[in-house]
């Protein structure tokens, strides 16, 4: 039997390709990477009307087949059957934006010229009509020589017609045509595209151009940056304000589980492992899922609405000041969720030195894994006071930590651009797509994927680190009168690194917490939990108390602030270092990152501690 026919989804960025992919495949998707290159491979399954399966592969959005960027090279290699890890597609589904035919037809013409079985999806046809454009689909089909189907991917319109057309096109999937050489004179293709677009489009009267009107406000030289700053501020306030209720539910669930375990197991090794190690350790990390999801939701909605590239436009001048481009803004903003997708998103930056600098400073953006640490420390040491109605002091401090990371990154970029990553042009050219209502289903799918990744991490990395940590902090058993956390193996490891961090105000427990945090920053929280609940001994009542209460007794304010400052800069995540190695093809830059971030973190924590102490805080 033949494998399921493969159809490649190709098109310009902003053609609505991903929305069409989601509409055709639903949640039956697999996301991975092409071997050897850092280009995302997204595939999904769809069924034709007669039940036959088709494998749909969503190729990266590109403007042409000129292989100058990794994305374009992969697209080209897949189409020519040269891409490792991918078979030759049986057919192409080319997506074009109906409101932007002049430009999108150029790439479509290049693709049609390959001579593979091809269908063109004329997407966003509703927006074109709204803009006052009437497109003669039959004429377009004649001009291109392939079937053209009108679609509105966001409302799943036209997907039935696409399925029918695809069924005809792929036949039994046994035929795999060899593509002809692609024409590559962009200027010639562009002129043909414009001529065809002009022949098949009838523009009616003046359109109501919402995007233009909105841009006059959002891209205003004065108002635009203010709106951006307010938006970012609201986002970070919301992360704290909206997450309280779900965090409480998760805490209740955790307490209930711990209680059930205590009741059903005899006191001893197993119960302690389960309650202190697994339930409370993993629970203290999972408790931050609501905040992480709120942050991701904001970023996803801003991206889907088309605002994110406007933010890049507004930020370009500022970024140029430290030798970066506005393009770096999107990877850096993604790094607020997690540095790993952020570093991977730097592939869209053409200039290699721009890209390297962006990669090196991405870990300074406050990723969501720092949130649990910040939240615990802020919750313990910063009073929940309102400065003005609706603006809490805790939110302001959190905002300040984000700002500290940004300023640190800007400073680092300015230095790096003048030293190790000197030279290079670093231009800034990008398309500002039309504003769109985000497709809530797609936002939900993406959010679910993030939640799944986080929970999988909690269930694997964080669980095992927590258990190992519990073992290291519990053994060997301390004799009476000696603190368990001092006597244990972990305590002894921490004692060896303590001299390095003692000058910046860190105590033994903190030295202990930052070791497992190398695996994942948020583990610092469960590490503190383990350290302090073990020191509480067998006193059930104290053992039940909240970690923040415990910390307030154990740390001074300067120490707590130094710990926060440390986490702003510290290279506390080995996965990030691994991704930097992969993206820069060697150990030089990851080693460099580790070194410079460590120096930065140590100095920042030290300065914070010494200043706070001398101020008598």
């Amino acid at each position, binding site marked *: 039997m033949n494998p399921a026919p493969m159809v490649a989804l190709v098109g310009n960025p902003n053609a609505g390709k991903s929305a069409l992919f989601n509409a055709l495949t639903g949640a039956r998707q697999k996301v991975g990477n092409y071997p050897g290159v850092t280009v995302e491979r997204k595939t999904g399954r769809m069924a034709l009307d007669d039940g036959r399966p088709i494998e749909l592969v969503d190729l990266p959005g590109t403007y042409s087949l000129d292989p100058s960027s990794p994305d374009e090279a992969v697209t080209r290699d897949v189409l020519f059957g040269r891409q490792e890890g991918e078979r030759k597609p049986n057919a192409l589904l080319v997506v074009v934006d109906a409101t932007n035919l002049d*430009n999108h037809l150029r790439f479509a013409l290049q693709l049609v010229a390959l001579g593979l079985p091809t269908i063109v999806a004329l997407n966003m046809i509703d927006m074109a009509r709204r803009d006052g454009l009437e497109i003669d689909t039959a004429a377009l089909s004649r001009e291109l020589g392939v079937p053209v189907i009108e679609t509105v991917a966001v409302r799943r319109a036209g997907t039935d017609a696409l399925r029918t057309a695809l069924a005809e096109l792929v036949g039994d999937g046994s035929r795999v045509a060899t593509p002809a050489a692609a024409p590559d004179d962009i200027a010639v293709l562009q002129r043909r595209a414009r001529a065809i677009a002009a022949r098949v489009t009838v523009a009616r009267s003046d359109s109501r151009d919402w995007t233009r009107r909105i841009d006059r406000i959002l891209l205003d030289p004065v108002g*635009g940056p203010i709106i951006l700053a307010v938006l970012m501020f609201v986002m970070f306030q919301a992360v704290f304000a909206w997450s309280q209720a779900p965090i409480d539910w998760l805490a209740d669930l955790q307490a209930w589980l711990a209680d059930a375990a205590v009741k059903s197991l005899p006191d001893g090794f197993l119960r302690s492992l389960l309650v202190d190690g697994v339930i409370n350790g993993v629970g203290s990390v999972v408790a931050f899922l609501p905040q992480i999801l709120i942050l991701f939701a904001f970023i996803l909605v801003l991206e889907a609405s088309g605002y994110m590239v406007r933010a890049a436009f507004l930020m370009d*001048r500022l970024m140029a000041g430290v030798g970066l481009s506005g393009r770096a803004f999107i990877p850096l903003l993604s790094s607020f969720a997690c540095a790993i997708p952020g570093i991977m998103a730097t592939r869209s930056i053409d200039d290699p030195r721009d890209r390297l600098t962006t990669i090196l400073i991405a870990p300074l953006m406050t990723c969501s894994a720092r949130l649990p640490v910040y939240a615990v420390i802020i919750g313990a040491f910063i009073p929940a006071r309102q400065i003005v109605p609706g603006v809490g002091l805790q939110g302001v401090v959190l905002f300040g930590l984000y700002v500290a990371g940004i300023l640190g990154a800007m400073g680092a970029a300015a230095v790096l651009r003048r030293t190790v990553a000197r030279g290079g042009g670093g231009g800034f050219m990008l398309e500002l797509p039309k504003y769109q209502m985000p497709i809530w289903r797609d936002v939900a799918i993406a959010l679910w994927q993030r939640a799944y990744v986080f929970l999988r991490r909690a269930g694997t990395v964080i669980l095992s680190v927590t258990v190992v940590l519990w073992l290291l902090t519990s053994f060997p058993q301390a004799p009476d009168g000696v603190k368990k956390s001092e006597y244990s193996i972990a305590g002894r490891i921490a004692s060896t690194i303590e001299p390095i961090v003692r000058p910046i105000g860190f105590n033994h427990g903190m030295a202990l917490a930052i070791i497992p945090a190398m695996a994942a920053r948020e583990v610092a929280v469960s590490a503190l939990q383990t350290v302090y609940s073990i020191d509480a001994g067998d006193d059930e009542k104290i053992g039940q108390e909240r970690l923040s209460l415990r910390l307030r007794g154990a740390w001074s304010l300067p120490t707590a602030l130094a710990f926060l400052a440390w986490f702003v800069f510290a290279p506390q995540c080995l996965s990030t270092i691994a991704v930097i190695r992969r993206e820069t093809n060697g150990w030089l830059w990851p080693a460099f990152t580790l070194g410079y971030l460590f120096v930065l973190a140590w100095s920042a924590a030290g300065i914070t501690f010494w200043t706070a102490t001398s101020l008598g805080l």
Partner: protein
Amino acid sequence: MRLDQLPLRQVSTIASIDWSRLADSEAKRLRELGFDAGVAIEALHHSAMRGPIACRVGRMTIALRRAQAAAVSVEAP
């Protein structure tokens, strides 16, 4: 007149582009984004402190820096 001198919201046409003033990668991207002699163009927004310019080219809105915009000659409106 150069694109960076074109007054906001006045429709004009690209007269010529001095490709030699642009790096290869910039020239390629500019072509891909639809810049070509004879195409209608309109400057829409100037960002603060002589930052980038957003302009309408054909049916797309494109952001580019002033240095690159200076390579694009437009008809006086």
